[in-house]
């Protein structure tokens, strides 16, 4: 079984925001909401780097751990999804997430939070695959169609990779070997961290 992950190659990201646009368009997310964003560090100075970031679908997901109504679940492929029918909009997932992934679109007065929205790895939600409700609440379910996340698929420089961890880290490793630099897997330690490393160590 594949383990789905995102990987952003900062040596390649040109901050075009194509991934952000692709995501917004594919899922028809509400105004003011971005499930994905591109962050540029050292903007305008030598050594500038950009990284596209969204929900990383963490191995030991903090959002899942702190949700008071337990509305999150992780698929067999490691994709972290949530049930908007259960979500109460408390914002704890936003407190816990290191990547700032959870978004709250239906905010009321005084910053009152509506139901949380976040990147689904283009895998929809608990509703029936390809149903109208699923699309309305979570966006397109591309994984169920046998496709990968659109942000990565549409990335012009192939900086953003989304898919099976084994496959995308092979691609990345090859790149690092060829260019001899840029081996920083930004966010991977945070998202897939020590437990995963320990687990993989135990297997081999």
């Amino acid at each position, binding site marked *: 079984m594949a383990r789905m992950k995102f990987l952003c190659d900062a040596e390649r990201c040109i901050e075009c925001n194509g991934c952000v646009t692709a995501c917004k368009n594919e899922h028809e997310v509400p105004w003011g909401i971005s499930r994905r964003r591109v962050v540029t560090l050292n903007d305008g100075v030598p050594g500038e780097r950009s990284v596209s970031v969204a929900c990383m679908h963490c191995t030991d997901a903090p959002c899942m751990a702190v949700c008071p109504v337990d509305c999150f679940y992780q698929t067999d492929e490691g994709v972290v999804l949530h049930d908007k*029918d259960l979500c109460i909009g408390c914002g704890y997932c936003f407190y816990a997430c290191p990547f*700032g992934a959870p978004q709250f679109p239906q905010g009321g007065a005084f910053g009152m939070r509506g139901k949380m929205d976040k990147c689904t790895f283009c895998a929809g939600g608990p509703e029936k695959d390809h149903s109208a409700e699923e699309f309305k609440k979570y966006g397109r379910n591309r994984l169920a169609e046998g496709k990968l996340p659109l942000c990565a698929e549409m990335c012009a420089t192939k900086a953003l990779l989304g898919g099976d961890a084994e496959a995308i880290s092979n691609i990345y*490793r090859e790149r690092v070997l060829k260019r001899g630099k840029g081996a920083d897997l930004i966010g991977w330690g945070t998202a897939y961290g020590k437990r995963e490393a320990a687990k993989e160590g135990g297997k081999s």
Partner: protein
Amino acid sequence: MKSILAFMQGLLVAALLGAVSAVAADAPAQAQAKEAHNQAQLWRDARSGQAGITTVRGPESGVLIQSGGETWRELRNGPISLYGGIALCAVVVAIGLFYLRRGMIRLTAPPTGRHIERFSSVERVAHWSMAISFVILAISGLVLLFGKHVLLPVIGYTLFSWLAAIGKNLHNFIGPLFLLSIIVSFFLFVKDNFWKAEDANWIAKAGGLLDGEHVPSWRFNFGEKFMFWFGVVFLGLAVSISGLIMDFPNFGQTRDTLQTVNIIHAVGALLFVCLMLGHIYIGTIGMEGAYAAMRTGQVDETWAKEHHELWYNQARQQPAEPTKAGQGSTAAAHS
């Protein structure tokens, strides 16, 4: 795992290649090495929450990685839930044991039938505003912290989510009212909550709680004063202010702030609930006449004498009949 090892090897090779090329060409190599160094620094900064530039608007949207959430999660799901839960259970058990030992503390002498006003209507309104909002906040707060482990397995996801949603909204809307009732209560009750010499005696004898010994006190005994200063004033303000910061996230609070105040809120609230369980117990089934005092504002003279003798003596010196001293006597009965 093989792939990881291969990856590490790759990195090593890459590093070596970098080193070799650095020896071969001087100036550009130095620039490259500097850039590599900057890069390492860049990712370190990013991991420690240094903000970059992004077109997406929102609080801290430029921050790539915020690591404080992990600490918050570990504290909340770890010691706060564990020790908080243990403390709550321990308090309930302790109260149960105390009840088994003392039962309801009854009056020793028969009631006289003559009543003294202990709480004015304004004081009672303030108290019950505080009490009712506290109970709602406490229950909804406990549901958010422990419900997932205690209630959810029993009533199921859908019903629990409904309950939690109602709880969250009640919590958010009643919170500010609670703060208001605390402020009003502070000004109403503060004058009788200052230290008096007799409080030392009360502390020494633990208020006669265990052996039933009579310990004279003024309008409020030291237990009540402790409840006032540590409970209502200190914990009340700590919980309310931290709550308000989370209740109105539209002022651009950072996650770091929210995480910190949430910890303060949770610890303070758990302590507060533990304390109030004791207060509610002694104010209801723990002591005869205590609930009626806050319900009606009146206490029997026997009750006053047995529980607050100094206050009773003082109140008696200026009889409560409105015919004689009118306003003056009412004021005296309060103080």
